[in-house]
């Protein structure tokens, strides 16, 4: 339940102000816009602009900083930012090297980012978009481009940001972001819904002894309901689903991220991860720098998602490349 706020209508504005006040050493507010950007944008490099509704911290603003995203456009809780705000943020950071938009594939985000992109293109800017579509629960195989983006967001942002930071051109940043997305799969479960600021009831409830399969990161209920199970069976459920959907050309090296949605806490995630890890090794996979943390949350929703990114020799160094952001730093 969201409890700390003043007027719910001011939530986004106060959140941005507080965030920039806390992390002013790394980020700055985009003047006159609902967004934040790196302190020193580099006009000769591709600008990677991410964004979406609020309520997913560290996504999106927590991933802005050298080596990761150039800027984040911040909507209200669970609402895509408007095209106007996307446009303003783009104008503030775009340089000659062009712009990559990357965000989860949701109707509202696509509509608003697309309108901003058209406006920027009309002004002569080179803007590309890579939608994140990692959630296997949201559309069947063969319709991958219909899928929504959940925790896989992080991998696509990280690799695109690393590519841009080392000076790759826009074609290359776009290609690597597309490739990362194509090789990322996620699946999640939820145990309880979250409550929006100012509201009393959660967005959905889960009966005792049940869990929701195929969560969304906006408090949407799952795609189906199943029986709650011990951690080791949850690990198998997550992995059975993901391993039934291995992307084309996947090798045996895989980055793995177990993401907490908000109130399924770290200790539980580690207990679950124990079995995830064992099983991945038993499947003959080589694991690259696992992450067990809250990476893309859904307010205080209870649940978690597991993401796999099948790496190769060109993606692995991008994942490992240094970055410094409020929420994620590689030294």
């Amino acid at each position, binding site marked *: 339940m969201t409890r700390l706020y003043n007027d719910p209508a001011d939530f986004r504005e106060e959140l941005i102000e507080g965030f920039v006040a806390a992390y002013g050493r790394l980020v700055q507010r985009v003047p006159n816009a609902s967004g934040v950007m790196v302190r020193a944008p580099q006009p000769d490099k591709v600008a990677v602009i991410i964004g979406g509704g609020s309520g997913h911290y560290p996504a999106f603003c927590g991933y802005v900083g050298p080596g990761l995203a150039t800027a984040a456009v911040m909507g209200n809780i669970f609402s895509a930012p408007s095209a106007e*705000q996307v446009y303003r943020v783009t104008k503030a950071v775009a340089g000659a090297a062009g712009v990559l938009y990357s965000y989860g594939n949701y109707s509202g985000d696509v509509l608003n980012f697309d309108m901003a992109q058209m406006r920027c293109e009309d002004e002569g800017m080179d803007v590309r978009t890579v939608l994140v579509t990692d959630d296997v629960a949201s559309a069947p195989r063969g319709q991958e481009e219909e899928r929504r983006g959940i925790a896989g967001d992080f991998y696509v942002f990280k690799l695109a940001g690393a590519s841009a930071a080392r000076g790759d051109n826009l074609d290359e940043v776009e290609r690597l972001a597309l490739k990362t997305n194509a090789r990322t799969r996620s699946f999640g479960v939820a145990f309880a819904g979250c409550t929006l600021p100012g509201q009393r009831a959660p967005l959905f409830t889960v009966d005792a002894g049940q869990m929701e399969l195929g969560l969304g990161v906006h408090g949407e209920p799952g795609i189906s309901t199943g029986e709650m199970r011990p951690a080791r069976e949850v690990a198998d459920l997550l992995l059975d689903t993901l391993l039934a959907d291995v992307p084309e050309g996947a090798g045996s090296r895989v980055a793995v991220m177990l993401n907490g949605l908000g109130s399924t806490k770290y200790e539980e995630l580690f207990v679950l991860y124990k079995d995830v890890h064992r099983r991945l090794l038993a499947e003959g996979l080589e694991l690259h720098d696992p992450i067990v943390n809250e990476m893309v949350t859904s307010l205080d929703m209870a649940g978690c998602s597991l993401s796999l990114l099948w790496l190769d020799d060109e993606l692995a160094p991008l994942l490992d490349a240094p970055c410094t952001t409020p929420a994620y730093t590689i030294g």
Partner: protein
Amino acid sequence: MTRMESTTNAQQVVRLWLANALALVGEHEEELGRLDAAAGDGDHGTTMVRGLRAANAAVTDAKGSAGELLAQAGAAFSDAAGGASGALVGMWITTIGQRLGDGPYDLPALLEAVQAGTNRVARLGKAQPGDKTVLDALTPFLAALEAQAAAGASLGDGWRAALPAAEQGAAATREMVARRGRSAKLGERSLGHADPGAVSMCYLLRAAADAFDRAGDE
């Protein structure tokens, strides 16, 4: 009223419409949130209220024709609301304003403008009637409005007479499986609840009918 007589009168109707819309949608904010939560993210009520507040603020002191006011209101709505409905409903309002321009503001002109706005929503959202969206209120409404225009109805009467078609259309979304927007991912789970965007559109259309009446009374 048969048509908006003067520029001032038409501007007044726009302001009245937005004020009525905010009141009506505000009354139903929780209901719209609940409908959205059933298969989406629960923010449709707050999103619409936020957008309508901004739209009202934008026209308070604005100058220009009724069409210009609407265009500005739509832009303000989009920016403040965000989300899918911010983009779509804002674009709908803006397009109507652009088409109406300096008038005339009679039923045929409004029919044409709302048609244009609706087409633009369908194009932007890549949606068709039956996909469980705002279009499922707008499409039957337009058909009914066209019939009223063909029969030579006045603006106020024709508009009001077309409202039940919109409401039936919105109610019918209960039996539809979402194919666009957030709830599309839920597939069959979206059955049994009306589409929040279609329901809020009915409030916008009804608020306009009331604005036409009150402006006619004045």
